[in-house]
């Protein structure tokens, strides 16, 4: 392994693995070691790999990250800027990947909600997590995460239970003496007929460079409903690689809303398998890179049962030298007759150097399928800009107004309403900064 990134992992892994929560559990040790050797054998993918075609890891390969933050438990961090007023249900806060009980809220959990840190769950009852940890993968970051994740979230909603207050999962990067890597995992199960609202937030408690990986494994049993809302406002030095893998049983409905605003190099791979009849997966979001940000969202949605539905609506806006990528793959497998699959991705370039790549891929192997996809990349309409300016709006304000209007539809259906307003406000705060000052 000739590169600095893998060398750092290889050097530190041995010692790290023996300290990780769950170390000593035979099946887990074996799985971690297997993933580690696979990672060290294959390293990070190059852009020749189809899945990494648009995201180069060459620069990352040259950097070494220290594994885990020994001071994570004591770093003083300011969480106020992440607060969403009125959203004060249970919350778990992670600083540099480590669970911080002092910043979290886990007392008085509503009946029917099990919520704990992964570290605690691994120590108390590792065997109950075996299935989720056993997942085979060929992705380098999945392997890294499966090897090194020692903390994260374990959440279960009991059958038939509706949890009204949104549960927040907050991941914060905090400045440290060295560049840090952290790896977290979320295991989430919604029992039959249950309902949950989740907020996943990424932010920074001060500028610094770090690499974070988060793998979320989400299962919805029959008729369960999940509203998953992601507010990604990581700091300018953050490399953030996430996978959210959804599996939906009969009549289950998962809705994912995401705002991808922060970070230097950010990738979110969303996979959804519609395993049961009439399962529905809705995903909507906005990615808005400026500066030299690189933000990639990947959708891989598989319809495997009859009358399943998926609806993806994404808006991308890029300014400066920002780069956005949306890869949207939808597969309707043989037998998934009567399925309905939609993908709508419109993008806006605010400067000549900005770039957005959109790649819809639709594969249909079933009958009586309704499917539609549309993807466009355009610019602000000069005639409309002039119209606004002729009414007195300064150019920057006109650009920001049009950019917000362009993105608004992506949040239209975010429930509950107070959360929608928070998300809209965060987007409204981000876009003028993004759209306002362009050299274009």
């Amino acid at each position, binding site marked *: 392994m000739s590169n600095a990134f893998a060398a750092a992992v290889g050097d530190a892994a041995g010692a790290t693995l023996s300290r990780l929560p769950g170390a000593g559990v035979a099946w887990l040790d074996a799985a971690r070691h297997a993933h580690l050797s696979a990672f060290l054998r294959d390293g990070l993918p190059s852009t020749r790999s189809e899945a990494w075609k648009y995201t180069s890891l060459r620069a990352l390969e040259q950097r070494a990250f220290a594994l885990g933050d020994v001071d994570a438990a004591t770093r003083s961090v300011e969480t106020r800027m992440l607060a969403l007023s009125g959203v004060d249900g249970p919350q778990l806060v992670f600083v540099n990947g480590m669970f911080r009980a002092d910043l979290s809220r886990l007392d008085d959990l509503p009946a029917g909600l099990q919520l704990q840190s992964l570290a605690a769950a691994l120590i108390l009852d590792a065997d109950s997590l075996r299935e989720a940890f056993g997942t085979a993968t060929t992705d380098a970051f999945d392997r890294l995460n499966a090897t090194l994740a020692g903390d994260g979230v374990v959440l279960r909603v009991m059958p038939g239970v509706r949890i009204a207050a949104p549960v927040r999962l907050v991941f914060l990067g905090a400045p440290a003496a060295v560049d840090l890597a952290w790896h977290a995992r979320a295991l989430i199960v919604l029992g039959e007929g249950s309902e949950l609202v989740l907020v996943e937030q990424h932010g920074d408690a001060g500028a610094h460079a770090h690499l974070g990986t988060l793998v979320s494994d989400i299962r919805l049993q029959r008729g369960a409903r999940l509203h998953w809302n992601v507010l990604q406002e990581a700091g300018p030095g953050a490399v953030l690689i996430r996978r959210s893998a959804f599996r939906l049983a009969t009549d289950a409905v998962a809705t994912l809303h995401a705002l991808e605003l922060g970070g230097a190099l950010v990738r979110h791979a969303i996979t959804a398998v519609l395993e049961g009849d009439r399962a529905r997966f809705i995903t909507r979001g906005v990615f808005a890179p400026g500066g030299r940000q690189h933000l990639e969202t990947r959708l891989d949605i598989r319809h495997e049962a009859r009358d399943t539905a998926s609806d993806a609506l994404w808006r991308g806006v890029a300014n400066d030298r920002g780069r956005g990528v949306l890869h949207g793959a939808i597969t309707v497998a043989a037998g998934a007759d009567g399925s309905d699959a939609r993908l709508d991705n419109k993008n806006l370039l605010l400067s000549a150097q900005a770039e957005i790549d959109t790649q819809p891929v639709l594969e249909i192997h079933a009958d009586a399928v309704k499917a539609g996809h549309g993807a466009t990349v355009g610019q602000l*309409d*000069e*005639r*409309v800009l*002039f*119209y*606004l*300016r*002729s*009414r*007195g*709006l*300064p*150019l920057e*304000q*006109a650009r920001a*107004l*049009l950019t*917000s*209007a*362009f993105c*608004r*539809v992506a949040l239209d259906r975010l429930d509950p309403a107070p959360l929608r307003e928070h998300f809209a406000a965060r987007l409204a705060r981000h876009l003028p900064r993004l759209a306002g000052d362009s050299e274009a």
Partner: protein
Amino acid sequence: MLIIDNLHARVAGKGILKGLSLAVKAGEVHAIMGPNGAGKSTLGYVLAGREGYEVTAGTVTYDGTDLLALAPEDRATAGVFLAFQYPVEIPGVNNTYFLRTALNAQRKRRGEAELDSMQFLKLVRERLKVMQLSPDLLNRAVNEGFSGGEKKRNEIFQMAVLEPRLAILDETDSGLDIDALKLVADGVNALRAADRAFIVVTHYQRLLDYIVPDFVHVLADGRIVESGDRTLALKLEEHGYAWVAGRQPAAGAA
């Protein structure tokens, strides 16, 4: 208030305005008529500051300052308003919100207090008396799916709210039914004032029965070729543009 002197302008490399002169005093209404493609809309765009409309010679003085040196938003703030011949649709931007944002942007730049939503709604209600517009149109996206006539009425409604000092109405009468034409004319007449001027571009003498102009000009091939009082419009209606074609610029147009 407005002095246009020997204005030459190009669009996409092609000369469109070729020595246009016109003087407009506060309180006056000037009608501009002329054949298709003569440069009437071009004049409106040049005055409002649209990019791509390049002035190659001549001057435009507004209230003693060089209008051409100002950005479009600064011209609006200084009181210049263009009612577009083809108002654009702006999906996703609420009509009322847009208008309040525009008004407050102007007020802010003029150093005036911005209006809160209550004050603004009060103003809107008042202006609706001048220019009726269904509440449905107020709550939709700007011009989106509006009929041709509704778009024109929306332009005049915006004018009533923004209260410009120099309003250029580019064929606001085109596409209006007879009742709407009267409404638009009433709207304009209600705003006529000693410190406000209008340039009304139209193809139809009928509008001028309702908005009685102080002067009528003929714009042909990028110049004002004839000027007169309102009876000029009647003559044009009768004889067509053929009889003014080929004339030299009218000496000291109005």
